[in-house]
């Protein structure tokens, strides 16, 4: 059994601990349950002590990490419920189903809490475009996300997609779901009430995905394809029925507790429900009553199956008939499979025999917790912009806009239904999507962000920057950032340099969350993103949610009107370390990322948001990858309008001024420029006019004294062409 346990991912020490808890050697089913519950994926054993250091509370936070999703008060009795989750390993092995079931899983996390899903976002990272697998992976992942999200009728409104050779053997597929609930009708997973029935609802249990959680907790060798049988297959139609059925049943008082069967299936859902209850609480399950897809399934297989679209519920006494009526209406399998007990134990029976008998308290409470050794990476020497050659800024701009990371992702998001439900105010392609909250006049702003190329050289700054950029993107559409969900994608935590990346990123995120009053309310950790010892870039993805009190005040990045001034908010020092310019134009990945001045972020962002709320700003864009000239070009392309730029106002090297990636900056379009400049000066916010909007149609161009002009149509063609052309190659 010890050897089997090792194959399932339990260390010798962990197996000994499990044996001590039981006072005997665990049988096969019990070993499988310990292995799943104590896997990195389910137990967070390497990350927990660090995750606990993140700020998770705030005046609006109703429920922080630890439940299926975070819950935040948005006023008027409404709450937003959201979470991001990774499906990296399955998506590399089988991109279509891996990505599809990632979407399905995160949807369930949200509607399990009583929320109707209203939006999805996807943060994707692929290997080098030159890598032979990349095109196939992009095609499969995008098809999988679209195929699932489009069918369930939840709009996919945003996300990101980047490429880097570090992801050649381990792509990242992170899906975020956002739902809406009544603040006083949130459903939790805490089991209660001995004698209450445990109900199984949804798809039948098959042999698919057995031990998916342990697969997700190990690095790949060279033969990841061998793990294909551990990937599950998604059925979005059944998911849609589950959403409608669960939300219908939740209108009454039938449900005491509810949990979706995600990673480690029936095992984690039943153990987590029992574990959150009072100490004496246990669950007894009769596995013969579990609806199965195949004959002859063992207790081990039933408990560890990761078949999709399944839910576990505990019903209030006398509610069985009501539940049966709803699930019959939606033609979903429904079975009473057990009951809540007072034994404090998880007891499983099959064919009249006891298949497992484990005390819940120790299974949950004595899960291993590791304080893994970590080291901090030495910092890189600064990049002196003066050491880089002078180049034509417009030629560089055109190249950057056609670079894989900046090229338009229209080819992706046009395959996602981003309009269904009829509430999409700001569509994909901007800083943040804006979804109105029905007819309340309010709206949510949503974004996902990470800059992994910053996190590798300096994880602390990288973590800080990811949070700051998320906060800035919400601000740039006029929203007040409320809270975030994080998806921490890293390599093997048993290597001190990888653990150092994780610890550093958390440190940076913690500082930024505190300074910006932007708490973490849910999240997910994905470790072991390595193939044959080569790890992904440290990638802490931030899913941000903001609130607009008046949806009519939402702005986007499209330039609107000739004669308006374009104003740069924030200081520019011309930082080119770890920049897109350095990578794409000079072919160098070097230097430290830009420093993040959190006080400046706060001051500048609060100012911009205030001006948007006051109706002074007609377009706004956060400065990020590629710096000032890229941001300006994106605004010009979105609006189909040109800009006559003022001469460079400072003595920085021109490429540092135009392409430096200093943080805490925005570009805004405004008619009353003097008024804004005066208001900025009054509160100590750096602001400077850099040009004027002029011309639309075929003649629209960016012009710069001394550098000539480049047409907006030419820039747009370069920006739009790359991805479709790449995907059309065979």
């Amino acid at each position, binding site marked *: 059994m010890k050897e089997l346990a090792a194959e399932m991912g339990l260390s010798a020490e962990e197996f000994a601990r499990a044996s001590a808890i039981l006072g005997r050697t665990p049988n096969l089913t019990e070993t499988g349950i310990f292995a799943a519950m104590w896997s990195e994926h389910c137990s967070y054993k390497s990350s927990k002590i660090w995750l606990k250091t993140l700020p998770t509370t705030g005046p609006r936070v109703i429920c922080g990490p630890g439940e299926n999703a975070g819950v935040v008060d948005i006023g008027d009795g409404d709450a937003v419920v959201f979470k991001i989750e990774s499906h990296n390993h399955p998506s590399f092995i089988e991109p279509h189903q891996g990505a599809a079931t990632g979407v399905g899983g995160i949807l369930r996390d949200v509607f399990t809490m009583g929320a109707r899903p209203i939006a999805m976002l996807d943060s994707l990272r692929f290997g080098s475009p030159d890598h032979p697998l990349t095109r196939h992976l992009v095609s499969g992942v995008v098809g999988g996300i679209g195929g699932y999200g489009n069918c369930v009728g939840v709009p996919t409104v945003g996300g990101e997609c980047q490429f880097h050779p570090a992801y050649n053997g381990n792509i990242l597929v992170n899906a975020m779901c956002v739902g809406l609930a009544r603040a006083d009708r949130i459903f939790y997973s805490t089991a209660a009430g001995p004698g209450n029935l445990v109900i199984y609802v949804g798809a039948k249990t098959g042999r698919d995905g057995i031990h998916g959680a342990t697969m997700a907790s190990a690095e790949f060798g060279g033969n990841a394809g061998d793990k294909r049988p551990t990937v599950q297959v998604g059925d979005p139609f059944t998911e849609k029925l589950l959403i*409608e059925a669960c939300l219908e049943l939740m209108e009454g008082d039938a449900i005491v507790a509810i949990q979706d069967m995600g990673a480690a299936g029936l095992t984690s859902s039943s153990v987590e429900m029992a574990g959150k209850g009072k100490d004496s609480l246990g669950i007894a399950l009769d596995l013969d009553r579990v609806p199965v897809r195949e004959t002859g399934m063992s207790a081990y297989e039933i408990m560890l199956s990761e078949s999709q679209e399944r839910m576990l519920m505990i019903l209030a006494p006398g509610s069985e008939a009501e539940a049966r009526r709803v699930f019959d209406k939606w033609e979903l399998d429904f079975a009473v499979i057990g009951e809540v007990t007072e034994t404090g134990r998880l007891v499983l029976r099959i064919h009249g025999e006891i298949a497992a008998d484990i005390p819940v308290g120790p299974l949950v409470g004595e899960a291993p917790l590791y304080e893994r050794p970590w080291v901090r990476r030495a910092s890189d020497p600064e990049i002196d912009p003066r050491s880089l050659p002078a180049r034509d800024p417009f030629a560089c701009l055109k190249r950057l806009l056609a670079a894989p990371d900046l090229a338009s992702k229209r080819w992706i998001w046009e*395959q996602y239904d981003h309009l269904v*439900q009829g509430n999409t105010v700001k569509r994909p392609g901007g800083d943040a999507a804006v979804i109105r909250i029905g007819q309340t006049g309010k709206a949510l702003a949503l974004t996902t962000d990470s800059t992994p190329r910053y996190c590798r050289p300096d994880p602390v700054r990288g973590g800080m920057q990811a949070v700051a950029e998320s906060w800035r993107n919400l601000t740039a559409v006029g929203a007040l950032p409320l809270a975030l969900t994080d998806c921490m994608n890293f390599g093997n935590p048993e290597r001190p340099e990888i653990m150092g990346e994780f610890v550093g990123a958390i440190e940076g995120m913690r500082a930024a969350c505190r300074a910006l009053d932007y708490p973490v309310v849910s999240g997910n950790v994905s470790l072991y993103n390595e193939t044959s010892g080569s790890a992904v870039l440290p990638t802490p993805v931030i899913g941000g949610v903001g609130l607009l009190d008046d949806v009519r005040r939402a702005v986007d990045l499209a330039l609107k009107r000739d004669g308006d001034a374009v104003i740069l908010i924030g200081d520019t020092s011309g930082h080119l370390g770890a920049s897109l310019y350095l990578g794409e134009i000079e072919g160098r990945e070097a230097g430290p990322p830009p420093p993040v001045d959190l006080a400046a972020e706060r001051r500048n962002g609060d100012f911009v948001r205030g001006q948007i709320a006051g109706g002074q700003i007609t377009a706004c864009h956060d400065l990020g990858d590629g710096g000032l000239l890229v941001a300006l070009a994106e605004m010009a392309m979105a609006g189909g309008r040109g800009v006559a730029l003022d001469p460079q106002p400072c003595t920085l090297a021109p490429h540092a001024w135009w392409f430096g990636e200093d943080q805490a900056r925005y570009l805004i379009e405004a008619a009353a420029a003097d008024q804004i400049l005066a208001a900025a000066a009054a509160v100590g916010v750096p602001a400077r006019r850099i040009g004027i909007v002029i011309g639309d149609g075929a003649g629209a161009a960016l012009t710069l004294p001394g550098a000539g002009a480049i047409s907006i149509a030419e820039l747009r063609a370069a920006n739009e062409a790359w991805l479709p052309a790449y995907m059309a190659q065979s």
Partner: protein
Amino acid sequence: MQAAIIIFPGSNREQDVCQAWKLATGHEPLRIWHKDTSLPETDLIILPGGFAHGDYLRCGAIAAQAPIMREVKARAARGTPVLGICNGFQILTEAGMLPGALLPNRSLAFTCKDIHLRVENSQTIFTCGYSAGQTIRVPVAHHDGGYTADEGTLDRLEGEGRIAFRYCSPAGALTDDDNFNGSARAIAGIFNDTRTILGLMPHPEDATDPLLGGTDGRAFFDGLVGALQR
């Protein structure tokens, strides 16, 4: 003014069209479950967009056999107008209430974007809010929208003025590029022989509010409601 909207398992754009209907009439349609066998008397029957029964088998094929469809057919035969949008259009063709069929888009991919339509016949209850030849901008969101029928049927539809909308350029030209899903003769929507049933792939219901990026769908619903009131 009362409409009934048929809800199939997997319908997902009912909220969008209910919202548009409410904007035009002040109240929501009655929601009718696909297993129901009776239908209240209403001025209009709507089959909404979505993925009824997951679109497993063929889009709309299972939904076309739903118990309620017998009643929808009977009511349509007696002249009650029926509007099928997207999946609703697919269901109408599968049910034999409109000719032809919808094939996968020629890109073989789901496509969600704003497109332009040319109004081909404005002399119907569904299109009287527009003028013939007018160009409107509304979104599409489908995987299987390539309209097809045999040449004889296409000729008949054309000859009888039963083509409601065609995909076109912003200026109203019929170009191959603008016919993004590869529909026969760029057809985006058709009528039955009495012009009381309309099936169309695009979503005028998602273009009824300036906040959501377009209002060209408003005239569709306002015109329809006006015609039903007359």
